[in-house]
Every structure is written in C-alpha cells, then in structure tokens.
C-alpha cells in the first residue's frame, strides 16, 4: 500500500473525525432506550464506510486501527480495546466483502457492517467472560444494528451526494 500525501492527509482527517464522532456518540446514549451492553449508534462507522469507498479497504482498515487504539488510549480503558477491535475488524471484513459484490448501495454495506460489528463484540464478550451468556443479547443487537446501520448508511449517502461534484472522491 502506497499512500500519497493527499491520501495520508485524508486518512488523518478521517481518523480525527471518527474519534470525534465516537465522542459525540456519548451524547446520544442509545443504551438508555435499550438497556443492553454494546448498544450504540456507531456514528464512527460513517467514517469507515466513507473511507472504504473513497480510499479503499486497506486505508479504511488503517483508519479503523488508528481509531480503535487512539480511542482506547484517550478513554484510558485498554480493556475496551479488544471489544472495539473485534467489532471493528469483523465489521470491516463484512463491509469489504459486501462492497466487493458491487451490487449493494451504501445502505446494504452499512447495515451488514453494523450487524457484523455486533457479532464481533458479542464474540469478544464471550471470549473474555468465558461464558456464553452474552450470546443472549445477539438477537436484540442484530435488530438494533439494522436501524443504526440504515442510519449510518443514510448519513454516508448524504455525504457522498454532497461530495458528488467535488474531486475528493476521485483519487
């Protein structure tokens, strides 16, 4: 993977945005409405979806790792790292696969990513707790991911539409 300065800059900006969105998310605690650990809007996924399209899988993955590590460091909670990494990486894998199908819109990719994200988090919880109890939350988390995935897909679509006539996506 060879990055142009322009791409590197975009990666940095997107990482910063993802971190900001993760922080912003705390002001919309979805877990209040649905009292289950792991329920959140996943706003940072907007960045991941955008990066996937605008920069490509490798760069998107890079941004994801940077976001996870920096996020955990800022929060001072390295325990959460395994959760966000597991979730993020499975989401990424699912999104790359769906993206490659070339038949899906950002909505489908985003929903698939959100669902995979929750599967990954539950898997992390099962592994760290050594207990299958978190699996119990999976159906609800999947249902929620349908909504949050559609939401991030929608925001991403708006974003692309706004950027359609710029050259940001052409590089």
């Amino acid at each position, binding site marked *: 993977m060879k990055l142009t300065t322009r791409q590197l800059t975009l990666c940095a900006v997107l990482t910063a945005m993802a971190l900001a969105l993760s922080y912003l998310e705390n002001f919309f605690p979805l877990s209040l*409405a*649905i009292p*289950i650990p792991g329920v959140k809007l996943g706003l940072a996924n907007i960045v991941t979806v955008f990066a996937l399209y605008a920069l490509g899988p490798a760069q998107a993955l890079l941004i994801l790792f940077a976001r996870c590590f920096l996020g955990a460091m800022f929060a001072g909670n390295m325990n959460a790292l395994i959760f966000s990494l597991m979730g993020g990486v499975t989401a990424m894998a699912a999104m790359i696969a769906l993206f490659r199908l070339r038949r899906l819109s950002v909505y489908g990719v985003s929903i698939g990513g959100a669902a995979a994200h929750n599967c990954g988090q539950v898997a992390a919880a099962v592994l760290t707790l050594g207990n299958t109890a978190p699996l*119990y939350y999976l*159906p*609800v988390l999947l*249902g*929620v991911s349908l*909504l949050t995935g559609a939401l991030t897909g929608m925001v991403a679509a708006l974003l692309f539409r706004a950027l359609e006539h710029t050259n940001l996506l052409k590089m």
Partner: protein
Amino acid sequence: MMKRYIGAFLTVLLLMGSLTGCGGSKQVEAQVFAMDTVMFLTACNGDGEAALQNAEAELYRLESMLSRTRENSQVTLLNQASEDFGKGQTVEVGDEVCGLIEQARTFSRVAGGALDITLAPVSSAWGFTKNAYRVPESGELEVLLTHVGMEHVHTDAAAGTAWLDEGTQVDLGGIAKGYASDRVAAIYRQFGVTSGTVSLGGNVWACGTRPDGKPWVVGIQDPNRTEEADAYVGKLHLSDAFAVTSGGYQRYFEEGGVTYHHILNPATGYPAESGLTSVTVVAAESGTMCDAFSTALFVMGEERALDFWRSGAYDFDLVLVTDDGRVLVTDGIADAFEETEGSGYVYKTVS
C-alpha cells in the same frame, strides 16, 4: 417508527426472560435452619405459601421446646431440674413433651431397649453433642450407664409434668425430627398441599406425588461412598410416605486408627457394631416411628431387625445395607425400590 421497533425488541427480550424463568406448576420452597440441621421444604398446590410459613414457625417452636442445647427449652429445664435438685423434681413440660417421652418409652420397649432417650450423658461423654470428640474410659461409661434406662424417666400425663432420677438426662433428638415431619405433614394437609417434599436432616416425607403425577424419587445415600453425594444405594419411589435413614457414616470421628460413630448401643455405651452400615425405615403413617426405628434397628442388627419387621407389630418397611455389601429390601417396598446399577452391592428382597 424507531420507537416502535425498540418497543418490539424490548418485548421480545422480556418474553425471552420470562420463558427461561419459572415454568410449569407453581412451587414454593423454604429452607429452615433448626434442630442443628438444615431443612428443605417444597410445596405445590393448595395454599403452599401459608403452609410453608406455618411449617417454619412450627419447626422453630419444636426446636425451642425439644432442644437439649437450648436454654429454657422444656427438655433443658427437665435435665437441669435433675442436675440441680436431684431425684424427683417435677417439671411442667406440657402434654406434647409428655406424649413424646411416652412414645419414646414404647418404642424403646418394643425394640428391646435398642433406642433410649436417656443415653444423653453417654453421648455427651463421647463428645457427640458438642463436636468435642473423645473416647471415654470404660469405667466412666459404666458409671454413666447406671443412669441410662427408661425406668429413670417419669411422667404424669394428667398434670403434664415429668421428672428424672438423679444423674439421668434425656435427649429427644432421636425422635424430634421424625415428630417434626409428622407436624409438617399435618400442616401441609391443613392447607391443602397435595404435592411436595419435606426433608428434615435425614427425615423425609414425600407428600402426594410429583407435579407430573409420578412418585417422588428419594435417593438413599451410599454409606460406603459418602464423599460422592450422588452415590446412591438405590432410589425409592415414594408418595405419601415417610422415610428415615440412620447410618454410622453420618457422624463419626477417628482416634488411634479406630472409627467411632454416633449411634451408640444403650447396652454397652459404645458405638453399635451390628454389621449394618445404614438403615432406612419407610412407613405411610408416622415419621416419629420411622425416626425411632431407624436408630433402633441399626443397633439391633440384621437378624433382630428383620425379626422385628416380620413380627408385624408395626407397619413399616426397610432398606438395610450390611457391611459385607448386601442390600436387603423388605417386600412391601420392593416394587418402589430401584437398584443402582454398578454399585457393587448384592440386592436381595426379604419377605
């Protein structure tokens, strides 16, 4: 739209929670710490809650009346009167204690003295009452045994009083839990409970049948494999029956490589060596009788126990486990007894 979805998912979640929770018929349970043991009670149908509450209160009442270690229990007062004032000091113990003493006298007589509530000082000498085990000198036991015997216990049923000869002490522990199971059974009937189990430290009452209509399954602990709590000599399928097991393995200590268990022979003052390792008495009517006879027959040994059973003086059945690896089941409960495959015991039905 979003809210409706969230609502739907929450409903699903709650539903899942309730499904994995309690299902089937309503069963109430209670645990009671009384009479130096823990008691388990379950009740289905009828007013189970009220039955359990009343049963619990009754168990505490019985403990406060019959305990030998509790201050101010009727039994303690009776023992103290003999200790402090000597022979003939009468104590108002009430009709219930009088009745129990007289029942114990009858059981003792029919069992040829193999059980005796006046064995208390001997049991204390061995340290079984306070978990301070020791082997008493034979001379000490001889002296203590002179005070053992139901002839040293007197009651006046009409006055509700009792008195002991000097040096004599009583302990109703050998029948108290059996009596308690009788009382709980009466309370269950009073509140219309038709299904449940009562387990009072080795004393079981199977009330009616299980909710699925089958008899309750009562496992008899394998005396040779006490380290494994799921090792059974066999299982009894019981409904509306009392079952009590006595065995030397239940309480014992070792000294100088010798094992001394808690079931003492009133004739010698030493732990009973009768060739039996466990005796289970099953009967439909009386838990008190089951409790008394399980101890008595353990002391009497195989032959005398079976002779006593064959005499038909009392209506009960037996599961005897011998120290040479035989399990003897009397024919009255042969059909209700389920052998444990691979236990190594030789099973025999006795008639």
